[in-house]
């Protein structure tokens, strides 16, 4: 079985859970002898991992001929102009944006001297054509998505494979194009929907691409039952087409043993780690913190991450006069994240809408008990976690207090999580994926 996989991010260049999930998934698939050609917008040239079974291919700079261009042009126009009616003009579009932050970033880009046009170039050398892609979630994301779809389709024409597997809306157009050109079955994986990311202010173009991709796919994979219901409700995807494959966490040995500084030992630390945006519910976290601090003395709250809501949260902390107990750690990476997890006594994920949410699983690798919002996909697989509705800050505060007051609670949670984590493995997800690949291939007659 050889899979052509279209993805948008892959470690070490990640900005969210999508890259982490793709990494874990492809590694586990490769170990089960599934060959994967993983096409990214850009990567430091085609390297192979896992004994050559996982090959990373950059779409950026793919050179193709005039003849291919002609063939591609018809399909591209049919998809982008007739079906999607999305115009990939180079705008400062960002999937997690609000108008204010958009303007803010525009100003920053000008100050930093970044010009959107120079980063992308289209080469015309008589008969050969190519684009350069930057990857990431740049301001001209839709244009990147458009160019990526064309070049990924070219790669699809060149490679031999059995099935196309695409991750999230950025790669859906590429997947649809590849399916149109090669006739291979398409599996669309949905890690987050536009409705999760944006709440009420949905970007219609993105939603249209999601709808088209999900309907064009032979099989849809949702990361949770929660997401499955979202796409059934908002996009009308028939239930029998959707399979739920929960994410997992890649076990990595914790390299460092972090010791808690003596002066902090009489205190407990409660952690929020994630984008400080509407979706992640940071405002509910600070309200819960306020309630807890009314009752408990020896506790500190840490908010790690950045996002458009950060200034508001900081102002709120000041207004509540809890700034000396509520700390902002900024955006953390690598070992800093490890350290933060390791020093925490409780990890809180108060997400308003979380299709899956891998971070609680990471927290559990450090033996940190977790408190999840019930509106998260991960709570479907984690039984041994505390759960609260994201809007119920009193309940959340009650549970935080309980962890601080009754040591047996944290101990029991961690002990049982250890057992539970044994079954939350990418190997299991890979088995499910392989079954789905075989199913779509036999149905498609290949």
């Amino acid at each position, binding site marked *: 079985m050889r899979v052509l996989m279209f993805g948008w991010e892959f470690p070490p260049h990640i900005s969210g859970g999508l890259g982490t999930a793709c990494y874990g998934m492809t590694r586990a698939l490769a170990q089960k002898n599934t060959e994967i050609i993983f096409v990214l917008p850009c990567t430091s040239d085609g390297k192979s991992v896992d004994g050559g079974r996982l090959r990373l291919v950059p779409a950026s700079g793919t050179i193709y001929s005039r003849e291919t261009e002609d063939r591609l042009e018809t399909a591209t126009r049919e998809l982008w102009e007739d079906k999607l009616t999305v115009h990939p003009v180079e705008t400062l579009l960002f999937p997690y944006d609000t108008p204010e932050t958009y303007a803010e970033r525009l100003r920053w880009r000008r100050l930093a001297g970044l010009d959107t046009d120079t980063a992308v170039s289209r080469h015309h050398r008589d008969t050969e054509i190519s684009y350069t892609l930057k990857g990431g979630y740049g301001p001209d994301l839709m244009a990147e998505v458009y160019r990526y779809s064309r070049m990924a389709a070219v790669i699809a024409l060149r490679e031999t494979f059995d099935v196309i597997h695409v991750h999230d809306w950025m790669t859906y157009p590429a997947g649809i194009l590849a399916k149109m050109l090669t006739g291979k079955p398409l599996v669309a994986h949905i890690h987050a929907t536009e409705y999760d990311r944006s709440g009420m202010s949905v970007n219609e173009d993105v939603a249209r691409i999601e709808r088209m991709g999900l309907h064009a796919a032979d099989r849809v994979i949702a990361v949770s039952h929660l997401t499955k219901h979202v796409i059934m409700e908002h996009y009308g995807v028939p239930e029998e087409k959707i399979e739920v494959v929960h994410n997992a966490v890649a076990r990595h040995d914790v390299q460092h043993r972090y010791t808690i500084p003596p002066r902090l030992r009489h205190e407990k630390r409660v952690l929020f780690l994630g984008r400080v945006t509407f979706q992640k519910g940071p405002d509910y976290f600070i309200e819960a913190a306020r309630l807890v601090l009314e009752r408990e003395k020896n506790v500190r709250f840490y908010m790690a991450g950045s996002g458009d809501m950060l200034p508001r949260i900081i102002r709120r902390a000041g207004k509540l006069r809890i700034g000396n107990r509520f700390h902002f750690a900024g955006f953390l990476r690598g070992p800093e994240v490890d350290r933060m997890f390791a020093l925490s006594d409780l990890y809180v994920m108060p997400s308003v809408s979380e299709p899956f949410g891998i971070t609680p699983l990471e927290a559990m690798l450090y033996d940190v008990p977790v408190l999840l919002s019930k509106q998260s996909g991960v709570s479907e697989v984690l039984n041994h976690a505390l759960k609260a509705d994201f809007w119920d800050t009193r309940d959340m505060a009650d549970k935080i207090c309980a962890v601080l007051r009754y040591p*047996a609670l944290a101990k029991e949670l961690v002990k049982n999580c250890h057992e539970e984590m044994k079954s939350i493995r990418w190997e299991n997800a890979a088995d499910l994926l392989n079954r789905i690949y075989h199913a779509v291939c036999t149905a498609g007659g290949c």
Partner: protein
Amino acid sequence: MPSVCFYFQVHQPYRLRRYTVFDLGQNSLYENDDLNCDTLLRVARASYLPMNDLLLKLFRRHGRRFKVGFSISGTALDQFEQYAPELIDSFKALADTGCVEFLGETYGHSLAFLYSRDEFARQVEQHATRIRELFGQTPRVFRNTELIYDNNLAKTVEDMGYTAILAEGADHVLGWRSPNFVYQPSNCLKLKLLLRNYGLSDDISFRFEDRQWSEWPLTADTFAGWCHSVNGAGETINLFMDYETFGEHHRADTGIFQFMEALPDAVLAHPDFVFRTPGEVSDACPPVAKIDVPQFMSWADAERDLTAWLGNDMQKDAIHALYALETQVAATDNAELRESWTRLQTSDHFYYMCTKWFADADVHKYFNPFGSPYDAYIAYMNVLADFELRVRAAAPAAVVSETGTAETVTDVTDAPQKKRAATSGTTRKSGAKTRKPAAVKTTDKTAPRAGTSEKTKHAAEAAQK
């Protein structure tokens, strides 16, 4: 002459509400009144009342040839009175037939024997008194909460004057022996031991409605045939089960009531067979051997041990914290606190904290009003923390200082009362009386509060229907 011996367990716990850290010290309303009332009314309608009616009918039909044993926990009786008083009348009517024997247990359906012999004795006495008052019988057969049993319990119960005790017929205890005989605990001289025939009991209480079961649908004649096959190789078939089996665990449309209606005739069709209550079995049958049970056993789960209530650290933490209050509660000499404490001892609270089968979503989850063992633990510990504050506030000054807790009481709402209790020489009463929140507690039996009286009325109406 082999007998079939039915004993039905009737129990309802006072389930706690989601009592949070914000309620702590502010109010002492621990119980989920709505849930308790709804549950009781539901079970009364589906199970208790129709089954009582059926039994009454069977007693009339068979004269004294059909009889059963009942064990009704004190918390269940309290809830009957509080929410559905007609249940008390219904059970009294059963008692008047003379075909029913009431067994003794701990008032709060508690695990007291494991942690405090004094409290155990007190609760057994309290329960016996209650049964005597209501049904005019003094229990002479004892069954401990969830059939938890060991040698020491048997000895204690013998010393209290009981003639027999019930236990699970667990394989690891019986070995090659049959549960269909009367035994004697190894360290007892008079007490008889009746063991549950779990195979035949579970055929009714668990497998009856299981369509995958090869014997489905089970008829009274088939079941009676199984009982008759014991003839010659046993003296009694002890069928012990929850009373909710009839109508609640197995809905009326499974045919469970028809099964039970037909069963006496089917069993009595064999001339050698009779029905006996547990007390009559112990009178009629001499013990055939001694049984040694050095470790605790119960009728729960596959393990038949205590891990359903005391298997993890949360459960142990909670129960130790609970029984650590014993002397202080006793010192307050306050009936209301005593009642609260009894209710907090109900085994169900600890059962809800069980993580053993949590991932499998089976019976534990079915019974758990919290949905998660962690939530159950959190609510329970918050309640216990508030209860401790009340106990300290009500305790005589001497005890408070003796246990060294006076200094640690920091809750602002309690501080003035404590001071008053300490300064006014008359102690207790003043301390208890000043605490208004405690006085509103849900435990007032004689005068149901406004909120529940309406529900009681509904129950009465439902019963009339």
